[in-house]
């Protein structure tokens, strides 16, 4: 099973995403932002970092990279895509996911071990979790405050598309404590926290992130 990880200039957690895929038993394939080709992968991770320095708005410039011209239609066609942190921002800027990520309320970068509640297990990336499970994952960003208009927020809740919610404190002022969302089809998921930092004993606060990658391996095997 091949899972691609896109590297943009300024991507930082691509290395970790590749490792997490391997730990979960998948083949990690490096995809280059300037290459308009997905090289036949079965799923794609858009990793964390500061693509283009987060200049202008986080994810705003990466969204126009050549690889995105391929990724956007593929995601619309059902390819499992996970956006982590900066990747989530890229997916929102690409309109694959609703809403936007804005500066944290106190405008400081904040890194902590964060508890999340898994609210939906019917996505390509969360099927291996138990619904309602609480997981501890790394959270680190300066612009992770999820915002959308009331109508969109109601729709997301109504359709069960809020995938993760912050519990035990909202670290960034996200509306309705939303940490991650999915598209209508459930193949595209974005979240601010970092499951790829939580897959190895001794590095990171837990092993709770691994199920993202085992979920998608199962989903992709089923396709």
């Amino acid at each position, binding site marked *: 099973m091949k899972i691609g990880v896109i590297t943009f200039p300024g991507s930082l957690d691509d290395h970790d995403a590749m490792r997490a895929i391997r730990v979960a038993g998948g083949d990690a394939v490096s995809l280059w932002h300037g290459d308009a080709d997905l090289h036949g992968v079965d799923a794609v991770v858009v990793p964390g970092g500061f693509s283009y320095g987060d200049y202008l708005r986080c994810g*705003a410039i990466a969204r126009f990279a050549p690889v995105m011209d391929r990724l956007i239609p593929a995601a619309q066609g059902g390819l499992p895509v996970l956006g982590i942190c900066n990747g989530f921002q890229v997916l*929102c*800027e690409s309109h694959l996911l609703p809403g*936007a990520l804005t500066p944290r*309320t*106190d*405008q400081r970068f904040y890194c902590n071990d964060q508890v999340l509640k898994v609210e939906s297990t019917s996505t390509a990336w969360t099927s291996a979790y138990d619904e309602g499970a609480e997981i501890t994952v790394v959270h680190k960003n300066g612009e992770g*405050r999820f*915002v959308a208009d009331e109508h969109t927020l109601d729709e997301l809740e109504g359709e069960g598309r809020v995938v993760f919610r912050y519990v035990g404190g909202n670290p960034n*002022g996200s509306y309705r404590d939303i940490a991650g969302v999915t598209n209508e089809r459930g193949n595209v998921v974005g979240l601010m926290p970092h499951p790829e930092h939580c897959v190895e004993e001794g590095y990171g606060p837990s092993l709770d992130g691994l199920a993202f990658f085992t979920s998608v391996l199962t989903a992709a095997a089923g396709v």
Partner: protein
Amino acid sequence: MGHVVIDVMPKTEILDPQGQAIAGALPRLGIDQFADVRQGKRFVLAVDGDVTQEHLAQARAAAEKMLSNPVIEDVVSVRVLEADGR
């Protein structure tokens, strides 16, 4: 050299933490007459020679497609930079 100015502001219904932080801090400097502060972005695009209609059209496209995010921001103006800095 001519310049085009593009102004982008956060939508009024979106919380603007930067503006709020400023509004909260100004009174400490004795600046207490403002009811609200919002912070947006200003882009200045340089062109060789004078600004033409085509430049303005390109600038408008840049503003809509890349320089603003319609979910949270409005493009409030795209225009030739005037001599007084406006």
